[in-house]
């Protein structure tokens, strides 16, 4: 890799040993992928995936202390993934004990570290930092140093920014240095499609199921998806973006997708069309039967597969305003049709604090609460990362949550039916 004189000086220790190690890390990272140079981070804000003060990863906070002790902070303000705790979310006494005394003992000190490192503010803990209400929305062509798989794939695919699937810690080092190695999804060549995905479903495929199927097939490849735009309409309106948010999160977590192109819809597919597809691209055909197969093959890891659901999480990634309103309408209709007044399974809807604040200005916040919905900014994934939750029959329509926890996946329609079924409450 060829460094500028300034970058070389940093590597040689001109700004101290710790900064030299930061640059060495970035150089090695780039060399692993054949990067020839560093490019400046041009996005206005960063985003970090590490939002949790988890005792088990204390070495991370020790490393961050080293950075702060050396006077190194992020060159840009940044947002962070959702917090792991929210008192509004139901938990037993034992769970509280495990969360506060064993697992997230470092939460407060870590949040203090993030303030020193440059977090935008204490409300900006969300995986959907790119929503208008949060305001960390990159411009097309911006070079980012982000981590959080669902945010990275959204920024690349829907917003046309450029970001690799960076890991936690690396993303902060890129923001500290102000430059990142140029490879992969930062290059025109790396953004070409290795897969053509032909969607031949009869009805609109479930976003999180379609993303999962594609992720598991293409792994870290770049899919060019045909036949999906007919279900989403011809423009990236709020509903289409919400669909793509969920689709991308599933593709990124069930596989390693960092960028997808949707024919006639996403910016690069609209601008370049099939010129984006590599000559040797493989093809994957998806129909309703294939999606049913994928869903059927998910392992059920509940101790008792026939257990009645005890908790439902909706909103991984965090929900948008339109999704919250849509769920409210669907729940209202389902409850009315079944002669119920409230949900029969404790249900948590998760969204960013700024989105929830906006929701409070509408009738929907009180409506959802009246149905028994708990509105929270929590990260359900972090909430479920403990053995106690393994014993809990948790259901979700998030394929990301299913992948990392013992939560059982159902489609949105199935979830709606379960949480409005009389005999479901335990």
């Amino acid at each position, binding site marked *: 890799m060829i460094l500028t004189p300034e970058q070389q000086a940093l590597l040689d220790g001109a700004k101290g040993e710790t900064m030299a*190690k930061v640059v*060495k*890390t970035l150089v*090695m*990272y780039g060399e*692993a*992928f054949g990067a020839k140079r560093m490019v400046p981070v041009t996005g206005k804000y960063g985003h970090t*995936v*590490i939002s949790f003060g*988890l005792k*088990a*990863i204390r*070495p*991370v906070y*020790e*490393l961050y202390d080293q950075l702060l002790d050396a006077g190194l902070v992020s060159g840009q303000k940044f947002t962070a993934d959702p917090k792991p705790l929210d008192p509004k979310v139901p938990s037993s006494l034992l769970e509280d004990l495990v969360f506060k005394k064993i*697992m997230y003992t470092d939460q407060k000190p870590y949040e203090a570290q993030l303030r020193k490192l440059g977090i935008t503010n204490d409300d900006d803990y969300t995986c959907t930092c790119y929503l208008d209400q949060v305001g960390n929305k990159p411009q097309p062509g911006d070079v980012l140093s982000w*981590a*959080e*798989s669902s945010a*990275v794939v959204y920024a690349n695919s829907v917003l046309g920014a450029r970001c*690799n*699937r*960076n*890991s*936690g*810690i*690396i*993303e902060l080092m890129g923001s500290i240095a102000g430059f990142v190695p140029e490879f*992969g999804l930062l290059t025109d060549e790396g953004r070409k499609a290795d897969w053509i995905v032909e969607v031949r479903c009869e009805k609109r495929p479930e976003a999180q199921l379609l993303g999962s199927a594609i*992720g598991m097939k293409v*792994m*870290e490849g770049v899919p060019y998806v045909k036949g999906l735009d007919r279900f989403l309409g011809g423009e990236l309106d709020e509903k289409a973006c919400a669909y793509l948010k969920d689709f991308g999160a599933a593709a990124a*977590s*069930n*596989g*390693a997708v*960092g960028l997808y192109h949707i024919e006639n819809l996403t910016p690069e597919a609209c601008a370049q069309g099939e010129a984006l597809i590599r000559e040797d691209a493989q093809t994957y055909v998806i129909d309703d039967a294939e999606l049913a197969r994928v869903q059927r093959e998910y*392992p059920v*890891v509940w101790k008792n597969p026939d257990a009645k659901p005890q908790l439902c999480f909706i909103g991984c990634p965090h929900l948008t305003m339109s999704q919250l309103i849509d769920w409210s309408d669907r729940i209202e209709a389902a409850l009315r049709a079944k002669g119920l007044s409230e949900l029969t399974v404790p249900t948590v809807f998760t969204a960013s604090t700024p989105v929830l604040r906006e929701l409070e200005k509408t009738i929907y916040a009180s409506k959802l609460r009246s149905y028994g919905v708990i509105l929270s900014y929590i990260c359900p994934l972090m909430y479920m*990362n*403990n*053995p106690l939750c393994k014993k809990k029959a948790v259901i979700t329509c998030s394929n990301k949550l299913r*992948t*990392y926890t*013992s939560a059982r996946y159902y489609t949105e329609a199935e979830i709606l039916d379960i949480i409005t079924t009389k005999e479901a409450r335990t």
Partner: protein
Amino acid sequence: MKQFQGRVIVPGTCTAEALVSRGGFNTLASFQMALMFGDKAVKCGDQNNPDIYKKPMLGKALCLPMTIGSTTGGMVLYTACAMGKQPACLLFSMPIDSLAASGAILGDVWTEASMPVVDQLGEDFLNYVQTGMTVTVRENGVVEVE
């Protein structure tokens, strides 16, 4: 005994028992429970990976195509290295992915752990190596399997 030539990402040598994941290795899902609750054997917690689910990863030669999943992956691998709970080595049949590379490099630059990493060993490598075989990693990226 069969030899495979790969590309060195993190230099080093080791001999260890192979643990083989035929599908993508989900770093977060594999390590999270073990790191969180101090599992000394660092058993794999990824229920979606039948090849290695519940099998100890500590000190094994982890053979895999690539890693998948959350972008906490590199941080998780770094943490495993910092706590001395890392595999003996990581051996990739495919070119290394960005999350695994991050974790391996962070472990190399910022911790005392030794975890050689070799990628591009090829499909033949993953077809040949079986869990329980003995794997030796040479400084030049040669991997011997017997």
